[in-house]
């Protein structure tokens, strides 16, 4: 990595006294050779790469949006080939069979009855559902059991819902090929008026003005107490000022955005009506993805799917969000936090450790005393307090974790720098008049880089664990954003009934941590064979 010179020699064909080509060797090359021999480390590296790939390209993968709430699809179990609609129907039937069993209409054998009571006692509800469902289906097919009229009605209603409920998105509304956002507010208002069938745009523009003013008023930088005492006129004056501050162009753009939102919503309403009618006639097939002309010269792209056609490979969570997408996006967040947090803490550690090691004396004493005292702190508690108090944003998380986790790296870098301080090349650089910071950052840190990299690799899983720990307590990232920790935390609350919500995120996270630890251990052993078997 740092031996460019040797490589050049190699290319020019350096030979030894026996005329053999001299193979340049470096610590990095040697370590890489050793790493490749370590099977677990290589597997770990491959797994880490797969995770990195998945999270880097998550937005290009055919996934549902991680924050798309589908209320009908709450807590659906994972399934490879059954669609959401079928699962919903199964849920409903299980429920109905169970009620009929309780009412004594679904007759089972005495053993089965006893078994069900025992399961209920142990609150193993899933087993009960499964049993009544299979038995019920059997009896229904054999004609020994029939639904009552009201039950049949419920089933038919759900069936109709499953067949007709659509999921529609409207994108890229264009007017004569121009994106609608680029038009002026009057033009957009005209389109909206046409959609609504109005003759003039005056009412629309007035309404929009009013909405904009109330939006600006809500955004004013005032406390609740101040708001309580202000009069209408005062508010009007302040709003005028705020709008003037914004500048005419920005304000107009906001007005246009507001109107575009209205147009989108109206188009969605019209399209939904149209598609629903087509669906009842059976003249449409899903998935539907076409450019359509809404009104004269207004065109838009409409994507529509039958809601019940969705497949959830890993099931859904409590608000019907796809768990697979959430795990992948959660992993993206977790891995990003691991990387950025490690970078942040390693950066602080390098700077402080290098200063302490190189300057020595009083600076060294002060920095190392701070490190000593901070080692004695229950630092996760400080992080928890900071997160609880300064708000639960990802930025605060970085800062809180970064501030407390630079200690070990600082100590390591300090030791390394102290041992390099008296080496010849540093002496040489100093005698040529290089400045302190140049010696530190150009000469000494690159020479300690291998141990820093190794340490950082081991730091990433620890960081991910700490972030997940905070998310688990509800102090990490906030919904709809997910991280592995928050997914696991959500899963724990309902693990008896919906175990997949706990199991899949746990597996995803554990596998990554395993891989990362194996890879990190392998890397450390490769760079420093003497450290083998040590912690």
């Amino acid at each position: 990595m740092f031996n460019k010179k040797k490589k050049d020699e190699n290319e020019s064909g350096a030979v030894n006294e026996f005329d053999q080509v001299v193979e340049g060797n470096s610590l990095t090359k040697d370590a890489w050779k050793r790493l490749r021999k370590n099977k677990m480390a290589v597997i770990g590296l491959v797994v880490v790469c797969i995770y990195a790939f998945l999270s880097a390209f998550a937005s290009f993968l055919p996934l549902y949006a991680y924050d798309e709430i589908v209320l009908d699809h709450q807590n659906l179990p994972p399934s490879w080939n059954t669609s959401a609609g079928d699962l919903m129907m199964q849920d409903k039937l299980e429920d109905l069979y169970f009620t009929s069993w309780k009412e004594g209409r679904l007759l089972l054998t005495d053993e089965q009855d006893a078994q069900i009571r025992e399961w209920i006692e142990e609150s193993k509800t899933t087993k009960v559902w499964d049993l009544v469902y299979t038995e019920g289906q059997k009896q229904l097919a054999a004609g020994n059991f029939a639904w009552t009229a009201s039950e049949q009605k419920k089933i038919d209603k759900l069936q109709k819902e499953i067949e007709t409920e659509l999921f529609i998105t409207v994108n890229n509304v264009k007017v004569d090929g121009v994106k609608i956002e680029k038009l002026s507010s009057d033009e957009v208002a005209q389109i909206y008026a046409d959609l609504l069938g109005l003759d003039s745009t005056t009412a629309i523009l007035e309404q929009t003005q009013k909405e904009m003013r109330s939006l600006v008023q809500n955004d004013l930088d005032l406390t609740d107490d101040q708001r309580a005492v202000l009069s209408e006129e005062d508010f009007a004056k302040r709003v005028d000022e705020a709008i003037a501050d914004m500048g005419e162009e920005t304000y107009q753009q906001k007005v246009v955005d507001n109107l575009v939102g209205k147009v989108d919503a109206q188009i969605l309403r019209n399209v939904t009506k149209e598609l629903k009618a087509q669906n009842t006639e059976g003249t449409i097939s899903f998935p539907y993805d076409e450019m359509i002309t809404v009104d004269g010269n207004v065109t838009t792209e409409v994507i529509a799917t039958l809601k019940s056609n969705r497949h959830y490979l890993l099931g859904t969570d409590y608000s019907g969000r796809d768990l697979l997408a959430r795990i992948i996006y959660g992993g993206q967040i977790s891995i990003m936090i691991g990387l950025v947090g490690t970078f942040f803490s390693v950066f602080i550690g390098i700077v402080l450790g290098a200063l302490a090691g190189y300057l020595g004396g009083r600076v060294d004493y002060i920095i190392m005393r701070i490190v000593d005292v901070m080692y004695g702190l229950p630092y996760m508690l400080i992080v928890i307090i900071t997160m609880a108090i300064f708000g639960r944003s990802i930025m605060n998380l970085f800062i809180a974790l970064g501030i407390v986790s630079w200690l070990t790296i600082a100590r390591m870098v300090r030791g390394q720098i102290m041992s390099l301080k008296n080496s010849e090349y540093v002496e040489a650089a100093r005698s040529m008049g290089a400045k302190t910071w140049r010696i530190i950052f150009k000469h000494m840190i690159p020479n300690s880089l291998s141990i820093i990299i190794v340490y950082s690799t081991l730091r990433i899983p620890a960081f991910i664990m700490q972030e997940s720990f905070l998310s688990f307590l509800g102090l990490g990232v906030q919904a709809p954003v997910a991280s592995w920790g928050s997914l696991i935390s959500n899963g724990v609350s309902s693990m008896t009934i919906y175990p997949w919500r706990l199991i899949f995120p746990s597996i995803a996270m554990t596998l990554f941590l395993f891989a990362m630890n194996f890879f990190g251990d392998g890397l450390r052993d490769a760079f420093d064979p003497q450290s083998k078997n040590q912690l």
Partner: protein
Amino acid sequence: MAKYIFKRLLGMIPTLLIIITLSFFIVRIAPGGPFDGERALPEAVKANIEAKYHLDEPVLQQYGRYLFDVVRGDLGPSYKYKDNDVNYYIFTSLPNSAVLGSVAIVLALFFGILFGVMAALYQNSWIDYLTMAIAVIGISVPNFVVAPVLQLVFAMNLGWLPTSGWYTTGEGYATIVLPAISLSLAYFATIARLTRSSMLDTLRSDYIRTAKAKGMKNSTIIMKHAMKGAMLPVVSYLGPAFAGVITGSIVIEQVFRVPGIGKFFVQSSFNRDYTLIVGVVIVFSVILVIMNFFVDIVYALLDPRIAY
């Protein structure tokens, strides 16, 4: 030795002072006070409440008052729970957490050392591989995954142990088992790895060879000579382990519904209950600092090379 102990005791004071100062000021520069409810209080009521808790005084005066109270052992009134003061809440819940933490540490130490030594003595045997496999799992799997999974398997599916609860509420001592195991797994793993590697190192060292050459019994060599040297890294790991157990217990207590101190910590962080947060942090820190003190003493006693 006495001088060393005295020096270490003195060294505890700045650490504790920093902790108190840090948490005191962090919670005070926070936006939003403990009485900012959904409904704004009338000015007069607010002023009265602030006067009652001395919140109207300058911050430095509050800090001084607080320090003085803490030294006397009074952690002040809770801002959120009106019935009792912070001392009451902490000292009714602390014993439960202490029992859980101690059981976990003892489990981790006992089995960690046992498995570590066995793995070192029978290197590359099945017990070595088993120990290392459990160790990797213990280090990679966070305790908030271990806890619910153990709960799911051993309590809910197999029904061997109670799902949650605590023995003080009359649910039997079996309630301790699962939380203690979940809490100790990570520390068991690290202790086993440490013991194994340092035992391997020690067994190769000169003084063990000398002992062997003198014809000593193998068991005496291991128990009397090797163990003492091999325990040094384990002892120095105990400090971080105590800190980890303290923070880890917050999650474990939540999962297993243990009526411990962790619940107060998380809740009071959300409630901005200043005195309770700082109280919990101080109690935790005192425990940690005392534990670290003992760890240092034990280390000094074990290692004859340390000069005090």
